[in-house]
């Protein structure tokens, strides 16, 4: 009989941690992409092109 070092609970935790990690990475990517998009359209503007910061 083998001793299971990794309990089924650990697998669930790993799944949750990986999921949260991937979500955070996706959020960072979106915010970074959004910043680049806003900066590349000249002064800081909203979706309608109204200037927020010069």
């Amino acid at each position: 009989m083998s001793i299971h070092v990794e309990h089924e609970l650990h697998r669930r935790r790993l799944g949750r941690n990986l999921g949260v990690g991937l979500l955070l990475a996706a959020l960072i990517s979106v915010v970074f992409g959004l910043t680049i998009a806003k900066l590349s359209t000249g002064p800081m503007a909203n979706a309608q092109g109204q200037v927020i910061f010069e």
Partner: protein
Amino acid sequence: MADVSYSEPTKIGEATFGDYLALLKPRVMSLVVFTAFVGMMSAPTAVHPMVAIAAILFIAVGAGAAGALNMWSDANIDQNMRRTRYRPVPAGRIAPSESLALGLALAGISVVMLWLAANVLAAILLGFTIFFYAVIYSLWLKHVTPQNIVIGGAAGALPPVIGWVVASGTMAIEAWQMFALIFLWTPPHFWALALFMRSDYDDARIPMLTVTHGRKATRAHILAYTTLLAVLAIAMAFTTLGGPLYFAIAVVYNSLFLLGAIRIWRRNEEAAEADKFIVEKRFFRLSLYYLLFHFAAILAEASLRSLDLGGWI
């Protein structure tokens, strides 16, 4: 020799990542994302692709927040309904307080991020939609009036308006036409479900129309709302959102939908029980395609217009 590994039933706090995703009601979220996307694309103002992606993402997060808050408020109801008793909260895999915390956190993040990505009006509308669904509908209307899903349907109808506002910054009549389409579609969609889920709403003590006014009255209401919906949906073909393609799709789907509603109206409970509610189930399935194809047609007309091919010109 004893095996030191053992398994025990799932307890609160041991949910999988999938359970947390299920809290956000991904199927409702997909409808919200699609209709918001169509609202955004059919607006006359072009949006930077990155802004569009971010806005859709944060609208989806907002829809998920509303779903998680609904899972928290409806935990007791969900426990008593066959359709919902295996959801993460009533099944005991996630604590109600955890669902509440996740919902509030996601609501805050989505509204603030939509404001930064798009504009303050879109963010206010998203915040209002979450509040309307989680508080006005889930906590209040659902428990007090058989008109619960009629009025509550407004929350599900707002995403195309939010999408339109993300692109244009203003609320035009076209956005409210899309709102009206979903608003009038919601009651027949849910009442058909209530007819074939039978005792679910009785068991949960929810004053659905089937419970308060009876199943015969519900069948009549489905026909009345479907007729109103058909008039609106076909009339929309002659507005700036429509065109020949939309008209063709609207005529086909509204004819089928009306035919389904007439069949439901003409049936009695004995006939429905005899064939296990096949007509009601078909009508419910058709309602999903109905909305999908109407919004796909609006999107197609908008795409054609950008190539100077859309509309009746």
